[in-house]
């Protein structure tokens, strides 16, 4: 999931467009990580040195690693260690954006270094590191300003895991905003009741609403009808259910859910701080709302 948040970081800083990211998420499935990208990520080579090796390679029939050693940029040991690394998802995204011409090596170098520094991430960031992911999400959405930062962070971390699990990994998280109400062509609302109350929503216009239902149900739909509502509602219900199971198991908090409500061309108002979490997919943007009432 670090790839998606690195994508969100690049987008929010206008270093690449949503279209660049959509293309890169598709192309990265077939992208092989280059040694130059790994060397930049590890801080062993600068973007300028990588460019120099790339240019030299055009006139010399030698591999990148051998040339980089010959030019004195890295040692043979460094090359061996870099090659032994497992490719990480966020580096593959960066590599693909460089390959597609959306970023230069120099822009990539600056972006990856700034991103790691801003999020206090070490060189070994990779998937399956829950605590780092948790911190990344808290920082990305500035949940520290929320009264219940822990609840918001836990909920959104699970939400993104479930998006990857049930919808797909080709999304970019966009910057959150604080709202008092939302309106959309389609809104699904589910409430959490118990030790604390919360309102969770999925909001989308017709086309992305149908598309997210199609991904979850793995079938095609022509228009928004009761079955499409039930499908998006079930995605929210499964996610919210897993959240309250986690709350019970990990934090001893007992909660329950209300049946989902479906609102067509309408709005929902919140009595307390509500975070709007927009997520950009190739088929459009879906807004997820968490309001800790």
């Amino acid at each position: 999931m670090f790839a998606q948040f690195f994508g969100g970081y690049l987008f929010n800083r206008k270093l690449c467009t949503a279209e660049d990211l959509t293309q890169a998420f598709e192309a990265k499935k077939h992208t092989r990580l280059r040694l130059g990208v790994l060397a930049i990520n590890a801080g062993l080579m600068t973007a300028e040195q990588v460019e120099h090796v790339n240019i030299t390679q055009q006139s010399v029939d030698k591999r990148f690693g051998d040339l980089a050693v010959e030019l004195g940029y890295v040692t043979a040991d460094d090359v061996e260690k870099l090659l032994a690394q497992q490719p990480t998802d966020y580096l593959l995204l960066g590599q693909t954006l460089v390959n597609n011409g959306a970023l230069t090596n120099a822009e990539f170098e600056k972006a990856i270094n700034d991103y790691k520094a801003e999020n206090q991430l070490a060189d070994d960031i990779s998937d399956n590191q829950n605590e780092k992911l948790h911190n990344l999400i808290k920082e990305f959405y500035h949940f520290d300003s929320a009264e219940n930062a822990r609840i918001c962070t836990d909920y959104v971390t699970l939400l993104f895991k479930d998006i990857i699990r049930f919808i797909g990994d080709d999304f970019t998280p966009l910057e959150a905003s604080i709202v008092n109400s939302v309106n959309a062509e389609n809104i699904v609302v589910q409430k959490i009741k118990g030790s604390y109350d919360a309102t969770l929503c999925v909001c989308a216009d017709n086309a992305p609403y149908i598309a997210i239902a199609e991904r979850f149900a793995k079938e095609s739909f022509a228009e928004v009808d009761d079955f499409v509502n039930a499908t998006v509602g079930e995605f929210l219900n499964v996610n919210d259910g897993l959240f309250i199971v986690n709350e019970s198991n990990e934090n001893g908090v007992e909660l329950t859910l209300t049946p989902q409500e479906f609102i067509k061309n309408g709005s929902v108002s919140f009595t307390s701080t509500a975070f709007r979490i927009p997520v950009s997919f190739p088929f459009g943007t879906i807004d997820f709302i968490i309001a800790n009432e």
Partner: protein
Amino acid sequence: MNINDMTVLICDDSMFARKKLSMSMSNFGVKAVYEAADGSEAVEKFREFKPDVVFMDIIMPKVTGLEALKQIIAEFPDAKIIMASSVGTQGHLKEALKVGAVDFLQKPIADEDAMKVLENVAKGVL
């Protein structure tokens, strides 16, 4: 009992959840699948069809799955009711088993878990 002789009642307010589980049941080759969209309908359909297995959601409008479970067990103490819900907390699990549910499945329900339930009912384990 053979799975091909079984009748199943699926109680869930989500049309999507009912369709998905119903398709799985048909693929397993059960004899008949009935559906109910809330707890009240679940009780009525149970009285009418006396299904061999019931998959019961918990969060439903009007009458909840736990209330429907209580009503069905009060009338039919041997009913094989499996709670199939997104809210599989220890609290819900304990309450459902106390009232008479024979098993609990966390949503989303994997086909192999649903099949295992049918096999266990067929073997008389549940």
